């Protein structure tokens, strides 16, 4: 029985009203047909292509165009984007606010990207902060966080989180030695900072719908950092224990809330980490392959149980 036939039946049995039937039957037939997603993707692709071309043009022709012209044009575009956003934005609210128009979110995103291009241009041409890139990146992250929270924009929030990660990376680059270890530690620090900040903001009711983005970024960075520690030949035990603890936490978080991305993180990162330890001393191909067959089946059985108990989709 097709959906349309079922809707007809439900209308006859009084489960849905005639008005609901008309609406739902129309939606089933694609009447009206929404182009919302397509237009958003088109705008996103357009913005990315535009900024890519802008950056390429500015970097290639900066000598011929001159600093004044380049900076003026970039500043004018930046000002236009931000003027549009600030003049059209609805009143700020700590909860989720829908965008006033289709183009609004993308103009804000465009403005954020142009800011990055202009800042990079200014520093590369004028060396205003004598190569202190971390300050630029930190300022950029702060600006992007402000914009993301002011205008309720996930794209800009993602840029802010990326910029913050960039700042952590640049801060380490000034350090003299042991950079691999330093990177790992700072990646963990970054993920803890992002996770805790996201939790606090959610608890305070400040854009609680952003929490998922914070948590996913924090979890992935943390798992990568711990895995890189597990892969080292020395002093890996602590990293391994931390990885197991994080896998447990990820499962404990994901299962009751039906956030299955966290279950997937725990399964994949955990399996890779545990396997990297267990197969270190395996000498023969038979033992190695047997390991993958047996543990693969065990993982499959466990995941099927999880899927049966928690993960039924429809």
């Amino acid at each position: 029985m097709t959906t349309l036939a079922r809707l007809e039946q439900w209308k006859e049995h009084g489960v849905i009203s005639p008005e609901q039937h008309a609406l739902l039957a129309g939606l089933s037939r694609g009447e009206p047909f929404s182009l919302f997603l397509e237009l958003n993707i088109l705008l996103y692709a357009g913005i990315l292509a535009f900024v890519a071309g802008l950056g390429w043009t500015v970097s290639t022709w900066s000598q011929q165009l001159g600093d004044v012209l380049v900076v003026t044009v970039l500043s004018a575009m930046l000002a236009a984007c931000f003027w549009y956003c600030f003049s059209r934005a609805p009143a700020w609210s700590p909860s989720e606010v829908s965008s006033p128009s289709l183009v609004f979110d993308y103009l804000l995103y465009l403005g954020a990207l142009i800011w990055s291009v202009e800042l990079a241009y200014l520093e590369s041409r004028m060396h205003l902060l004598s190569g202190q890139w971390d300050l630029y990146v930190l300022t950029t992250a702060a600006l992007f966080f402000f914009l993301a929270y002011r205008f309720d924009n996930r794209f800009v929030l993602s840029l802010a989180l990326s910029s913050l990660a960039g700042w952590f990376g640049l801060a380490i680059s000034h350090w003299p030695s042991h950079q691999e270890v330093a990177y790992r530690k700072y990646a963990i620090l970054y993920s803890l900072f992002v996770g805790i900040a996201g939790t606090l903001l959610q608890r305070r009711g400040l854009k609680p719908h952003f929490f998922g983005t914070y948590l996913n970024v924090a979890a992935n960075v943390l798992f990568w950092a711990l895995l890189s520690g597990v892969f080292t030949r020395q002093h890996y035990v602590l990293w391994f224990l931390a990885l197991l603890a994080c896998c447990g936490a990820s499962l404990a978080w994901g299962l009751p809330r039906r956030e299955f991305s966290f279950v997937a993180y725990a399964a994949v990162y955990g399996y890779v980490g545990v396997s990297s330890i267990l197969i270190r001393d395996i000498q023969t191909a038979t033992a190695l392959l047997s390991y993958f067959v047996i543990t693969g089946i065990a993982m499959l059985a466990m995941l099927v149980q999880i899927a049966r108990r928690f993960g039924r989709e429809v």
Partner: protein
Amino acid sequence: MRAYSASSEEALLTRTLLKDWAGEGFITESQHRRMEQETACELRCTNIFLRIVLFLFTLVILGAAAALCFVVFRLQPAAQSAGIFLLIFAAVSYATAEFAVSRARLYRYGIEEALATCSVGFLCAGLQAVLFSGQRYSPKPDGTELLVPAIGAIVSLWIWHRFGFPYAFLAAMIFVLLLPGYWTSSHSAQHLIVAAFYAAGLIIVATVRSRDRLTYLDYRYSIVEALLWLGIYLAINLHLSSADLLKQWWGGPQITAEFSRTFYWITWVLIWCLPPVVLARGLRRKDRRVIAVGAIMAILTLVTNKPYLGGQRHTWDPMLLGAFLIGVALFIRRWLAHGPGEIRHGFTAKRLSGKDKRWMNAGSAAVGLVSANSITLSPQTASRDFHFDGGDAGGGGASSDF
């Protein structure tokens, strides 16, 4: 012939729609519960994350099990005995996939998908080893080696038909790509043969599809039609389907020498004709996937037009393309918004489904994840000669390079 009954698939489709409508508030929670009870089906589904992980672990098990057999029985990969083992593995994988569907009632669960996918891989590798062990894999004049891709294409089509996995159809299309190389060395003829195969498939799908409008099969055919349109376009667009694509785009020899002038310019005309045709068909049928493919084709045509005409690339070309895309999106949005009830000819720019919002949220989070992983700058970038590459420093993602 199909692994799942039509009633089960229709029930699943209805349940998916009900969930979406309940999320959007078109039906109340009590209505949703009652309607869900009436659309109960015995198929066992899971969410996308567990599906992907189950798929991966099944692949690990199958790959390791096959390799273990090779090691235990000391088989040479190219030997006939190895081929027979692979054929047995193919049969076992396929039988297990059938069992998982018929007994465990798995539906898009990852496990049965990996089993069916591996059965094609094992079959092709096994056939290759059994039929051509000891020979180099190269196009032969007698053409017997085309048996492997031909059987691969047929079995992939069967798996698509039986289980409905869209990527099985894509695999069949890729196998078809390998066939013309065994028949002719002419590049033009190879492009034509591939396009002809896909066009024949398209005609069949379009004919069959018209009978199944607004059913679960319509969704299945929609993906296939979109893939076929894209396949035809890629076969025709010589600047995308040429073997030395990257070399040509970065200043290598022009591909005009590879093809006759007439053929070259006919394909140029066709890459301009196809996108409007596909877009018009997608819009007329209100088929999201075909519309998307039409739009992708249009963008690819704009991107490859200059190389086709032998024009010089400029740094501002991406800017113009971006401005054009933004302009088109805004124009369509405004045009639709000015219609009665913000609807024109049955189309609207308003969001009507919670799925769209979920896609947008997941997309923006993914952008964040990707950039967060690639953001850490190397130490030397902190010097005065810092290269602002990829917009990293600001997390911008712009392809600027100072």
